[in-house]
């Protein structure tokens, strides 16, 4: 993984504050857990029926009955609980998730999220993403700033089928931290060494600058 991606993940980890209940989506978001201090007070939720996820295990260490929603073998912590899929999404829909971190194909300037289907190319099904995006109290996205062809993933409007409308509050990329506001995208931080102009150039919609100084973010967990 690129250093910029690693720093993006480390920065996103600082979004988690003590006491939160958090769901980390499949892909880049699950790696956020590696940047949390060992004794950090947080409850991680996985939609296949568990609260209190502990560190990921290798196949050699694994319990065959204990996976996360992405199929990785995970462990428990003292106080973990198991439950069925209906109860798991009851937590999500009734607002008991303080935060979810999701991947994205596209995010619009109004916070629409597209992350489950590329018609004709990729349509494995929506899984638990719709409910996470629509119902977590705060939804943030982790994504590369552009796709492999260099096209912006942050756009005026999404062209792909939506996961949920107006759900994304903040986006962490390998270039910047950007908030979705009623005025559109607002640049919050840049990765060290990247200028605001470079971020704006790689963004497919107007990018507002903050009134204050623009901080740079680093890889270290800030607590």
């Amino acid at each position, binding site marked *: 993984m690129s250093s910029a991606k690693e720093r993006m993940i480390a920065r996103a980890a600082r979004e988690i504050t003590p*006491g939160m209940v958090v769901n980390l989506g499949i892909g880049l978001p699950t790696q956020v857990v590696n940047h949390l201090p060992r004794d950090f*007070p947080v409850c991680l939720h996985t939609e296949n029926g568990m609260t209190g996820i502990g560190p990921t295990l290798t196949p050699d260490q694994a319990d065959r009955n204990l996976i996360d929603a992405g199929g990785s073998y995970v462990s*428990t*912590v003292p*106080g973990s609980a*198991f*439950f069925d899929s209906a*109860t798991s999404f009851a937590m999500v829909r009734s607002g008991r998730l303080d935060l979810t971190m999701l991947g994205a194909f596209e995010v619009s300037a109004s916070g629409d999220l597209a992350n489950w289907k590329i018609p004709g190319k990729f349509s494995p099904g929506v899984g638990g993403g719709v409910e996470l995006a629509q119902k977590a109290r705060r939804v943030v996205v982790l994504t590369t700033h552009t796709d492999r062809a260099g096209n912006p993933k942050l756009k005026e409007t999404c062209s792909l089928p939506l996961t949920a409308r107006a759900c994304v509050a903040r986006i962490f990329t390998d270039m910047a931290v950007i908030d979705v506001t009623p005025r559109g995208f607002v640049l919050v931080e840049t990765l060290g060494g990247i200028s605001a102009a470079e971020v704006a150039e790689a963004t497919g919609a107007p990018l507002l600058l903050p009134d204050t100084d623009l901080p740079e973010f680093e890889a270290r967990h800030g607590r």
Partner: protein
Amino acid sequence: MRLPDKSCKIASAIAKIKPGDRVMIGGFGVPGTPMTLIQALVDHGADNLTIIKNDANEPGMGIDHLLQSGQVSRLITTHLGLNTHAISLMNTGQIEVEFNAQGILAERIRAGGAGIGAVLSDIGIGTELAVGKQVVEIAGKPHLVETALRADVALIHADRADIFGNLAYVATAQNFNPLMAMAADCVIAETETLLPLGGLAANAVHTAGVFVDHVAELAELSKEYAVVQR
């Protein structure tokens, strides 16, 4: 990663209840009724409450104390048969009572806890329970819209709990407790035994601590918890 500690003092948790709040209270008869939390709510004094509970206990027990103290303006329930005092308050208009079919009350509360807007059911069609309810057809058959119920606060009785708020119940003391423990903005649980993290096996949890805001261990079980001598 370490799960947060939600253990609390009963009085400080109950102090969050405001006049006019909707309060769900677990229990079916004596089993599962949080007698100590109810007494704390009487001591706290918040009034004009809407109480959501399967039944009204018996005179001089459980939520009858809240009826006696005049703190209840409305009761959403299924059956008052064992509480003549509650029936008298209803008949004289001192409290407003809404009766639900018992399983429909359970489903409405569960829907609230599951973030579902309503369930569609054919229970009560052709009876006065259907009066005033919106009707939706599914495949040509009429169903009643039974809207979700949520509360400001839920008062729960557990047998065992850990400090994160994972709860376990015993025997028929389960009843409405696991449902209500999902369906309120603030969930307060009393427990006969409070365990450290890891004290409750992950497979034995009935209510996941994510749903629970405060958990308090009972110092003693008052005589209202005991077998009723009839």
